[in-house]
């Protein structure tokens, strides 16, 4: 039998210690892995909840960071109604806000919008058609001028004639104006610079299908990003749209970013089913955006009843 020396005991203890610490580090690794999986699950549940029930979804804040429930088998009739509201997003070369718009409509309506390409001559059966922002055809000739003459715009006009709601945001507004679906023109900003900042808007008319979830005169926040948002119309046209309550949004609190006449930020057509606006409501629809002042616009258009105001 070998002699049990203190050296041997020392070596054995050292080896045991090394193995133990290996086991420990593997255990910690697994624990991290489990935590990561738990995090993924929580975010997936949050996404699911958001998609299936846009009314009760509250983005995580300090006060409600508890993990969302998994079981969501019952839906309210309100929710189901929103599921019937279908939307389409027009995609043209040079647009860059289409993904933001698709994400916003998916979150709010609970259903991904169909996308329609410039050469499409038909738009599927939808309740809302949205032309997002960007720089279609590189703003050649005039902003929106080329896009307005593409085949898809004839299909958009046909939808509008049938009473389908149409929203044009930023370049989408310019395209609607160039297509003659909205009056006036959008000219170079008066200071000649591209403007990218947040402005305040006043809801001038809350009695429309686009603004019914806002209060009349409500001041909302909205991001803008454009070079040609300076709205212009001849005096007769201006008097008509003002007199008919067709200016839905006006830049408020001296935040007119482009020299737009009468501080006009958004207008509707005479029938009230085609809206054009320069600000980007799709970029302010959830807490992660820093606010949700743009959300009621889409909820109004999609016939979704206003939610309770979020706790501050």
């Amino acid at each position: 039998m070998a002699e049990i020396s203190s050296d041997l005991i020392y070596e054995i203890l050292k080896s045991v210690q090394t193995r133990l610490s290996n086991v420990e580090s593997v255990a910690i690794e697994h624990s991290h892995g489990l935590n990561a999986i738990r995090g993924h699950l929580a975010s997936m549940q949050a996404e699911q909840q958001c998609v299936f029930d846009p009314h009760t979804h509250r983005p995580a804040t300090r006060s409600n960071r508890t993990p969302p429930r998994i079981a969501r088998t019952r839906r309210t009739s309100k929710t189901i109604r929103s599921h019937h509201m279908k939307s389409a997003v027009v995609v043209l070369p040079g647009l860059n806000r289409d993904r933001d718009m698709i994400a916003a409509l998916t979150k709010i309506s609970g259903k991904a919008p169909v996308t329609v390409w410039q050469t499409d001559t038909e738009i599927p059966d939808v309740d809302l058609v949205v032309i997002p922002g960007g720089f279609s055809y590189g703003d050649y000739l005039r902003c929106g001028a080329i896009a307005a003459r593409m085949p898809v715009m004839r299909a958009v006009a046909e939808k509008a004639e049938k009473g389908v709601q149409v929203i044009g945001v930023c370049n989408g507004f310019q395209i609607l104006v160039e297509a003659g679906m909205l009056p006036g023109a959008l000219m170079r900003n008066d200071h000649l610079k591209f403007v990218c900042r947040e402005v305040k808007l006043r809801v001038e008319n809350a009695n429309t299908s686009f603004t019914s979830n806002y209060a009349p005169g409500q001041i909302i926040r909205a991001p803008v990003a454009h070079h040609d948002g300076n709205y212009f119309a001849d005096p007769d046209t201006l008097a008509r749209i003002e007199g008919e309550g067709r200016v839905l949004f006006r830049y408020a609190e001296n935040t007119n970013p482009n020299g737009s006449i009468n501080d006009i930020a958004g207008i509707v057509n005479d029938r009230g089913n085609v809206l054009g606006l320069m600000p980007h409501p799709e970029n302010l629809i959830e807490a992660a955006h820093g606010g949700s002042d743009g959300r009621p616009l889409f909820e109004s258009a999609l016939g979704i009843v206003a939610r309770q105001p979020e706790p501050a």
Partner: protein
Amino acid sequence: MIKARVTVTLKNGVLDPQGKAIEHALDGLGFAGVGSVRQGKVFDIEIDSADRARTEADLKAMCDRLLANTVIENYTVAID
């Protein structure tokens, strides 16, 4: 072959911030007496046709439908 020049200009009363900026720049270069500058666009178009009257009508249609935004712009068509 018919060669034509289409000139598109802003209507009177329509604000032209780019023209204003050019006006100030000319002033800065020391050109005295520049009253006002209005910026416009010129399109030189070649059309494979011998029918001048028809071509002129086509060019006007092109202006109305695409080259000019008649809400804010006027146009003139000159054929060589």
